[in-house]
């Protein structure tokens, strides 16, 4: 028993690929994937509303129809590889034609949705242990699309990427053990503003495209015109573009046929090796991806061999996302909470939010529709799980922190428990608990399985939730900056060494010169930390405000990914800010104009200067916007603590202020142990 395979055409009209305006790189990457599904997927990076998912959907329509084994739950290729049920069949396999599947993975999907689970009806009606296959099986030989892949829980992304890499899905869950072929073209998109994609994840994609809205007014108007035409009459629009679609389809088919015969000579290989080495990509995946993309490009152009030029052309697609994590990253965008021009009083104090309230909030909210729309009518959904809704539309409302539902269905199912806490039904365990009693419970024409209250088992999920520690450190030239940075680095490595089995993560933001940088995005890896903190820039002025803004950006990103976190942020400074934010951001600096926002100072702290007031204003916003704990470490080695800003900063943050007479890594570690949850 498996859900019927929905044909995309019947669910909603699909915008034709040929009618997509501009976005040449995006289209090229997808077409190359269409030529060679073995490319390893395409990662699309860019803002919302840039035709990413439209194009992915449209691509599936261009792929030639498939010959599949009729009645096969996976949709096996009669030419193999075959799934276990096809292998077990005797006689010649019946064949039927089917469109290339397009399957979308919702972020809130549970693991059993994706990988498969116990078939309830087979168990209840016939007492049979059978599998209900998941999205990975449905996507076999088609396109699997994941929007906002950076927000996908790690255990799901691992499942998808392992299957994508090996072409097989291996399932050892809920009393089931099965494997089936799962060869699909993976297309995933994300918006970097919503948080980065881990380098391990990015590397697994064959190609990557940065997508931007078209900038040319003429093109933008054309986008609008076509979109309106499509929406007013999809059929007519499709008919209008049918010739273009057919041409693309035919060309794709030709290229696919040619692909195995395209030659890759030593020159092309050398070129790929050189380019990959320049991009400092780890391992050899980059090089291979480069060659494969160039080969698909040659096939697409109906050429029999790959020239070094084609490698050059393919390289940006294959290599940009693989460069080793660089040190100097683009400055983070201004965090949302600081962008909103609402007075601090109106920012709802998020500390008082309880997880329970967060869960309620999203029920019936506008965002819900988004997560559900991929489910076709009539499709069976597992009873135990609910697709968590996401508040994607309400995020931009002033003062509201992103609060995606923290569903109990998150996390990896590891075992079952008879304790009733409302965690979701563990079918397999429930059935097993009920099994021994069946003889006495069964009636003549009742169901094969009778489950009673005491049999109920719930899923215990692995909460792979570590803690988060952020350092925000003054790297300015004021006093002992080099020593302070070294000490902080030692403390970072020390915390990581101590914490590695708790899956805790540590990040570091440093400010100095005219701005702030995220030197270490939160990581749990000692090796990554060591590498990224190999050099510690110091010197210059003290842009404390910029440091706080960077800290806020990191907090916002991390809390968006995991709203249940309570990060600890340790701010180490001598409390003498002298660079206002406007200057750090390269904006005009106008103290007279902006100095009256927020209010509440003028009570004798610091020099009362613009930079000081700005810092305190930011501190107040930080403390009211994030569920985080702060500690201010006063690193002033002089004897004039009363005139620096640390104490005031701490007060505005609702934080402790600690003065470390001698700053040592051990001292900082003690501080961490003391204040970390």
């Amino acid at each position, binding site marked *: 028993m498996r859900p019927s395979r929905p044909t995309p055409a019947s669910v909603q009209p699909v915008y034709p690929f040929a009618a997509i305006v501009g976005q040449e790189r995006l289209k090229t990457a997808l077409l190359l994937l269409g030529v060679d599904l073995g490319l390893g997927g395409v990662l699309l990076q860019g803002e919302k509303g840039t035709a990413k998912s439209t194009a992915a959907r449209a691509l599936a329509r261009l792929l030639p129809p498939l010959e599949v084994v009729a009645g096969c739950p996976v949709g096996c290729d009669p030419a193999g590889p075959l799934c276990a049920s096809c292998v077990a069949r005797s006689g010649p396999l019946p064949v039927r034609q089917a469109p290339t599947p397009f399957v979308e993975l919702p972020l809130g999907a549970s693991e059993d949705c994706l990988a498969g689970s116990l078939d309830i009806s087979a168990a209840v009606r016939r007492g049979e*242990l059978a599998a209900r296959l998941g999205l990975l099986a449905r996507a076999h030989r088609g396109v699997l699309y994941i929007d906002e892949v950076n927000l996908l829980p790690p255990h799901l992304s691992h499942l998808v990427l392992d299957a994508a890499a090996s072409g097989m899905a291996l399932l050892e869950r809920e*009393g089931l053990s099965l494997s089936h072929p799962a060869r699909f073209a993976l297309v995933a998109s994300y918006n970097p503003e919503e948080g980065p994609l881990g380098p391990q994840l990015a590397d697994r994609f064959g190609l990557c495209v940065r997508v931007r809205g078209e900038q040319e007014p003429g093109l933008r108007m054309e986008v609008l015109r076509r979109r309106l035409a499509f929406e007013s009459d999809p059929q007519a629009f499709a008919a209008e573009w049918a010739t273009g679609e057919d041409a693309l389809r035919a060309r794709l088919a030709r290229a696919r046929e040619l692909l195995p015969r395209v030659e890759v000579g030593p020159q092309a290989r050398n070129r790929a090796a050189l380019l990959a080495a320049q991009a400092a990509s780890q391992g*050899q995946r*980059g090089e291979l991806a480069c060659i494969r993309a160039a080969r698909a490009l040659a096939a697409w152009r109906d050429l029999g061999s790959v020239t070094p030029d084609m490698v050059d052309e393919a390289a940006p697609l294959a290599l940009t996302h693989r460069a080793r994590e660089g040190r100097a990253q683009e400055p983070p965008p201004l965090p949302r909470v600081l962008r909103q021009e609402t007075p601090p009083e109106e920012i709802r104090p998020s500390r008082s939010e309880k997880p329970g309230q967060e869960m309620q909030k999203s029920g019936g909210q506008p965002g819900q529709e988004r997560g559900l729309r991929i489910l076709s009518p009539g499709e069976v959904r597992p009873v135990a799980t609910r697709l968590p809704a996401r508040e994607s539309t309400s995020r931009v409302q002033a003062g509201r922190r992103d609060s995606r539902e923290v569903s109990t269905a998150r996390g990896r199912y590891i*075992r079952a428990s008879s304790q009733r806490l409302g965690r979701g039904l563990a079918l397999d365990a429930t059935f097993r608990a009920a*099994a021994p009693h069946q003889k006495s419970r069964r009636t003549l024409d009742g169901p*094969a399985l009778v489950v009673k209250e005491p049999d109920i088992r719930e899923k215990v999920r692995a909460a792979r939730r570590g803690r988060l520690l952020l350092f925000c450190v003054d790297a300015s030239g004021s006093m002992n900056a080099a020593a302070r940075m070294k000490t902080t680095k030692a403390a970072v490595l020390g915390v990581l060494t101590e914490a590695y089995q708790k899956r805790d993560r540590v990040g570091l933001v440093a400010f100095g010169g005219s701005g702030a940088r995220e030197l270490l995005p939160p990581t749990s890896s000692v090796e990554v930390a060591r590498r990224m903190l190999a050099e510690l820039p110091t010197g210059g002025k003290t842009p404390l405000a910029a440091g706080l803004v960077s800290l806020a950006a990191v907090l916002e990103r991390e809390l968006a990914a995991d709203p249940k976190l309570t990060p600890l942020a340790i701010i180490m400074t001598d409390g003498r800010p002298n660079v206002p934010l406007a200057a750090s951001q390269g904006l005009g600096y106008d103290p007279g104009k902006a100095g009256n926002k927020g209010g509440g100072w003028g009570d004798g702290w610091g020099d009362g200067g613009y930079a000081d007031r700005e810092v305190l204003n930011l501190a107040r916003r930080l403390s009211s916007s994030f569920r985080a704990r702060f500690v201010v470490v006063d690193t002033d080695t002089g004897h004039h603590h009363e005139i620096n800003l640390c104490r005031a900063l701490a007060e505005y943050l609702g934080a402790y202020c600690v003065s470390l007479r001698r700053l040592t890594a051990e001292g900082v570690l003690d501080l961490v142990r003391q204040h970390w949850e």
Partner: protein
Amino acid sequence: MNKQKPAQSVNPTAYPFAAIVDQNEMKLALIVNVVNPRVGGVLIRGEKGTAKSTAVRALAQLLPAQPTVADCPYNCDPGRPCPACQARLEAGETLPVEQRRVRVVELPVGATEDRLLGTLDLEAALTEGEARFSPGILAAANRQILYVDEVNLLDDHLVDVLLDAAAMGVNSVERESVSLSHPASFTLVGTMNPEEGELRPQLTDRFGLCVQVRGLADPALRQEVIVRQLAWEADSAAFGAAWADEGRRISAAVARARELLPSVQAAPGVLERVVAVSLGLGTDGHRGDLTLLKGALTLAAWEGRNEATTGDVDRAALLALPHRLRRRPLAEMEFDIAEKIKRI
């Protein structure tokens, strides 16, 4: 869709072990474990895209056959039958025995506890009203190689179960009206990318050997990797055939080494050297000493010698000790210990 043996049989066109370019230390560590399963497995650490998983999955091609009770769910040794087979013997039954290849049994990181440990056979319970045990991955892994890809991402809970079984060589199941123990002694092979987090020390210690894999630096070798990869992708059957001879040569060498191993003796001074190297490098506990000695004996067997020398000890130390060295609190794991060993 279910009730087949854990399905690893579907991939006939795996990349040939013999065709893996360079990475000799990793290949040697794997081969040592095939020659002598008592070495205790290997942990392969390395950055992404360095053929770690490919090598382990390819290892299946080299594995020797061993006498196995044909219908025992635990693949037990007729010479040392499991309790269930023992009971059958005592009841006067003759156990059917066959020569069966050692397999690579894979534990996916997403596995649930019931599949690892084994659990009540639901179908038998429902249809026959019988509480029968449905064996899990630990049962399938008895006397085989148990492979965990991305072992550092395995849930702590599963790690506990795994450690328990690895320490005892036995899996004890007490759940859902099932109560039994069965042998579960396996060679543990794990691969991981340290950038995704570290491994628990208890688990690290369970691996006999540990190697670090790096991307190849030599451009000619890198080219060769690409050429072979493309050739394999283009026609895996033909590629496999081209490498079949080389594969058979390695398998034969493995078989010879296995035969020779029981008669390999330690040369005078070898025990002293084992202890000196262990103490000199500063390893914790005695497990390292034992692995070091076994490693040295196995290396000698692999090279067709009857006697393990102090040189074998030094070479085995490169594989057996990196993960056992006491580390200064903030230091990295050291793999370049050859120089240090020389000085001892």
